[in-house]
């Protein structure tokens, strides 16, 4: 299947990789179909690319492995992957990731949700630089 995104150009994808977000993302409820896109220059970040709006994409970073305690505390299923939405600002120290409301992907049924975790320790604007261990890989 084919889709054209303004940032990624024409992309070919397999229907089995399409993720369904029944509620969309918070503030973006209209877009329900997405792909997770790997881009070499963006590694280790990923992109959540809408298959319904050509100009809609979100940078993400996976944190199920680095923050396995969050995974264990809130999600009982094994087939769940957690991503944080990444907000990049001109100053790297101002860039943040949203650990409070992760994108939760069920890798078995291919659904995704943006949940809000009931935990005052988790911040909507967690400094990205405190999270840089992902770059050690």
């Amino acid at each position, binding site marked *: 299947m084919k889709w054209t995104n303004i940032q990624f150009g024409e992309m070919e994808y397999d229907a089995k990789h399409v993720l369904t977000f029944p509620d969309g993302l918070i503030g973006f409820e209209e877009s329900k179909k997405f792909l997770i896109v790997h*881009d070499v220059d963006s590694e280790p970040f990923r992109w959540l690319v809408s298959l319904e709006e050509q100009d809609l994409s979100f940078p993400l970073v996976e944190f199920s492995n680095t923050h396995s305690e969050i995974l264990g505390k809130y999600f009982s299923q094994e087939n769940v992957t957690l991503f944080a939405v*990444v907000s*990049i600002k001109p100053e790297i120290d101002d860039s943040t990731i949203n650990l409070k409301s992760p994108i939760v992907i069920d890798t078995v049924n291919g659904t995704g949700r943006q949940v*809000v975790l009931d935990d005052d320790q988790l911040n909507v604007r967690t400094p*990205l630089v405190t999270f840089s261990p992902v770059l050690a890989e």
Partner: protein
Amino acid sequence: MLILSRKIEEEIKIGDSITIKILGIHEGQVRIGIDAPKDLKVFRAEIYQQIQKENADASKVTKSDVASAVQMLKQKKNNKEK
């Protein structure tokens, strides 16, 4: 907007499945208990607005923004290791 006065321990029902209970009032803060179906999202309005803003900011980020952030993070890491 419907406006109701409630005392501590009193409840408000919204439809069949949602109950809101006033648990306590202390120094200008009201503690509220909410019983609602699991699939219904309940959270503080200001958190919702923050998340909305973060998502909106993230949706404007470009590939080159991310690529330069990756370079800056690598540089930061290298500087630390020196």
